[in-house]
């Protein structure tokens, strides 16, 4: 092979290697798995709850940022009845998931309250 030809081949090879190195550095890395949702389970539940009709209540047990259960009611005849119904559902789920924390009223209607348990 003539010296000029080998020089051209060398330049091409350098170009290919540089392009590969550039691509490896700049292209996004393929990461295994699926990115998890930003919206939490509780945020989704709260959004859905707000659309329900009065009288309604939301009662929860546990940590809304982790393991928790809830009970909710809607279209009840009074706020007291709504809380009672939601609490009964919460208690059932609390037993299912073996959550030690007691059920507490989180909201009556669309108003968030914090009840001392």
């Amino acid at each position: 092979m003539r010296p000029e030809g080998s020089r051209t081949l060398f330049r091409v090879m350098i170009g290919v290697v540089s392009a590969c190195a550039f691509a490896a550095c700049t292209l996004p890395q393929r990461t295994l798995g699926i990115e998890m949702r930003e919206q939490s389970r509780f945020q989704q539940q709260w959004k859905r709850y707000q659309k329900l009709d009065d009288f309604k209540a939301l009662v929860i047990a546990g940590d809304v940022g982790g393991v928790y259960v809830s009970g909710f009611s809607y279209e009840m005849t009074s706020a007291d009845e709504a809380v009672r119904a939601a609490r009964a559902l919460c208690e059932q789920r609390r037993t299912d998931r073996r959550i030690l924390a007691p059920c507490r009223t989180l909201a009556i209607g669309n108003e968030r309250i914090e009840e001392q348990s």
Partner: protein
Amino acid sequence: MAILLVPLALARADEPPPSAPSPEVSQTISVLSYNVHGIFPLIAKDSPRERMPTIGWLARGYDVVLFQEDFEFHHLLRLQLEHHTGFTGNGMGWDPRRVAVKALLLPLSLAIPSFSPPYGAGLSTFVRDDIARPDDAGRKAYGLCHGWFGANGDCWARKGFLRVAMDTIGGRVDVYNTHLEAGPSRKSVKVRKAQLEKLAEAIEKRSGHHAVIVAGDFNISFNRPGDAVIMRRFRQRLGLEDSAAGPILPSWRERDYILYRSGPSIALGVEHSGEAMEFVSERRALSDHAALYAHFQVTPVPVDAP
């Protein structure tokens, strides 16, 4: 499978050997239920082909593994679970609508790898060889679905249930794997209710009063009106308890459950249960569902002499 032999008190030489099986002998069986989102990559929006071997490899640690949405990459999961006996759910069947869609999509299915809709149930269950009963399994499609498009696209799969039996220290335990209708609409709730009724009928018929484990993707959310009632009725009808397995991470929706009941000769109890965190890494997971696990303690119930 870990067999826990609780040390018995040292028997005195003059004492006769116990004739009935000791209630203190028990066995622990671990169960994993995981919707693996094994669909066509463009719809899954990632590369299930790369996830499946890892899922299968991690699932090896469980005695009984129940997968849902195991549609396109079943062979990759099966490859990893070499010491488990595998069972699959019902196929696509001969429903005229699905057959027509299959025929329409056939050219695409032939040209594109890992694209073969419509599907069967997408269920698979793997049981460790030493407790599996290879000839004792059954499967049935629910024959119900609602919709082909958007959130109501359940008709792309012929959903159903898969029953497999396993041998335990106390006898046979039936394990049911299922994936119910998704979707939040009233029609979807109605379909889920009907599917659960069919599943309850099947369990009553096939398993009688025996010990059972029923797990899978129920698509039931206790945060949705309507769902809680149908789940409660299903459980009450069969006397099923919740193993308390549920998602820990706040991102997950609550859709999957592991339920169980004891039988006349076997007492099932939950040692511990929860989310199998090995399938999650920081903000990424190996599927779009939480992987749930439960460790059951199986104890034979001595039969009283007449």
